[in-house]
């Protein structure tokens, strides 16, 4: 675990089990709404042992990072650029999931000099949030976690079949959301819901970009990425069959394969 300091607040991050080496390129993983670095547990280990310095961050106010939360995707994107600097790098490869995909998209648009490549998992130009989910999160009703679990996983994942023997995916996802401090889910979902710059940001992205989608994603369905397809100059796509919005946990091996192919080809 490394601890970095951004804007005077402690940021915790996992390095995938290997100390970062400044001579290796930096690969930053950014989690989604009310999640934390542990949803990248396999991807971060894989790339840390294959030629990258890995930083899977806990966003401010998430996991073990100190607050305060950022109020918007744009604010998180600026924070992320500062994090790259705090890690001692001028440039980084970014990988984001869901809200993290919006953040990394926006970061690549705002800070083109800092971003070498972009991978969007469950990426879209906008992630409007169902009003029932928003209000459940705002009321601190734990039905919000069950709604996220219900919509976030493919029908197949609802029955299990976790790639790590013995783990129960639905229970694991709900527990991860439950662990976040009160207010975090509501703040993150509101930030996703308010984000309007996706179309514009896509046109500003200059670096090579990979879009990884789950074939059964109903939270960022296929069409929600059309503005990315139209806007981003160099976009590659991989669709993972039988996966939903949380494909990074549902099918981590496929995500590793896609990301490995993309990064190797750069």
């Amino acid at each position, binding site marked *: 675990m490394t601890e970095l300091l951004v804007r005077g607040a402690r940021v915790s991050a996992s390095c995938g089990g290997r100390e970062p080496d400044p001579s290796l390129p930096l690969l930053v993983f950014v989690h989604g709404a009310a999640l934390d670095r542990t949803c990248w*547990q396999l991807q971060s*280990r894989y790339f840390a042992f294959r030629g990258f310095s890995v930083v899977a961050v806990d966003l401010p106010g998430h996991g073990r990072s100190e607050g305060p939360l950022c109020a918007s995707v744009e604010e998180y994107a600026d924070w992320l650029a500062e994090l790259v600097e705090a890690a001692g790098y001028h440039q980084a490869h970014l990988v984001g999931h869901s809200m993290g995909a919006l953040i990394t998209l926006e970061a690549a648009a705002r800070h083109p000099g800092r971003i070498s490549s972009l991978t969007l998992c469950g990426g879209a130009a906008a992630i409007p949030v169902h009003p029932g989910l928003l209000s459940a999160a705002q009321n601190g009703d734990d*039905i919000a976690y069950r709604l996220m679990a219900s919509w976030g996983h493919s029908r197949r994942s609802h029955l299990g079949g976790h790639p790590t023997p*013995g783990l129960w995916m639905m229970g694991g996802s709900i527990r991860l959301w439950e662990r976040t401090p009160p207010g975090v889910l509501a703040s993150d979902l509101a930030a996703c819901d308010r984000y309007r710059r996706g179309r514009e940001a896509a046109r500003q992205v200059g670096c090579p970009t990979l879009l990884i989608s789950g074939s059964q994603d109903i939270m960022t369905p296929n069409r929600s990425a059309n503005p990315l397809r139209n806007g981003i100059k160099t976009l590659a796509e991989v669709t993972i069959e039988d996966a939903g919005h949380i494909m990074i946990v549902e099918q981590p091996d496929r995500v590793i394969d896609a990301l490995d192919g993309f990064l190797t080809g750069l």
Partner: protein
Amino acid sequence: MVDPKLLNFDTLSVHAGQHPDTDHGARAVPIYQTTSYVFRDVDHAAGLFNLERQGHIYSRISNPTVAALEERLAALEGGVGAIATSSGMSALFLAIATLMSAGDHIVSSSALYGGANNLLATTLPRFGITTTFVNPRDTDGFRAAIRPETRLVYGETLGNPGLEIMDVEAVSAVAHESGVPLMLDNTFATPVLFRPFEWGVDLSYHSITKFIGGHGVAIGGALVDSGRFDWTASGKFPTLTEPYPSYHGLRFAEEFGTQAFLIRARVEGLRDFGAPLAPQNAFYILQGTETLGIRMQRHVANTRAIVEYLSGREEVSWISYPELPDHPDHDRAARLMPDGCGAIFAFGIKGGRQAGRKFIKKLKIFSHLANVGDAKSLVIHPASTTHATMSSEQLEKAGIGEDLIRLSIGLEDPDDLIDDLSSALRASRK
């Protein structure tokens, strides 16, 4: 209000953890009777060994049939995952060995299954792990017994032999105040009757030999983690928070978060101590999980009928079942286990050791043996069998009177069971 469409208990008990097999479409969970698994390539092998890729390597550590059962049990208990073991006892040992080292200490309920009591009271002290036993009804007693080196508070959902029920939420709060988890043996209740993680329990384990299998054909155990306990915040669990030399200095809690305990228990505990569940036994127990919900309802219905019947018999001096108004934990049972307190209970027979012997001899449907939680009704009279070498005073100290008969009520027709008990009670007087 929007409605989360998550699958319910009886659906999960039939399906969780399994998809029809992709090669042949097998609907039942196939028995993967194999010790080992071919790697895709050299890099894939390296990834598996370094916990970057997921999958099976060797069946001491994981196996697809066993994994289906593990996921199903985790789903039913409401946890983040489970590890199935070769017996209930090995699940208990795996939990302890994953959490602690020589010098550490357990605070346990004194109302335990005999095997668990042996492990804690007699065997583990040889390895430097000691236990203080506390009356499960005495919440303050748990608090008073916790020491700086305590690493676990432990008990059974329904204690042995009196079906003692602790104040689970209060004991959980006591454990958490001291930065240690609460683990319960949930064998007697099963997740049908008690969902430990909804009441503040952190870890649970089962002898799946019993109701979860339900048929009495296979021994097995399962350890389930709620994923709620914060090992890092507690600071008392170096096995989960400090670098582990065996995986390049891996810190489990840092990288695996809510799954840290289960991953360490598997990659160290199953790897080094062994005792995995065999795939064949996992298959047998999977058959049991499919009917767990309806079976437990029938077990409870039969038990209630028999408890009522015995309450009216003059040969019976007392009955200990928490649904009876005179049971000390009656109110707690109504709150924690409204659907029933299982199918195992004890009663006193007038006439002591001799009457007990005659009673058992006359029973035709109840089998006289040392097990519980089977489709078949079972009976044991400890004073003339498992504890026959003990004097009356020793028995009394162990909380087992000479008159104590323990029944495990099966799935037979309750009228036949009552007829069987009736003739045996008559015989006990002769």
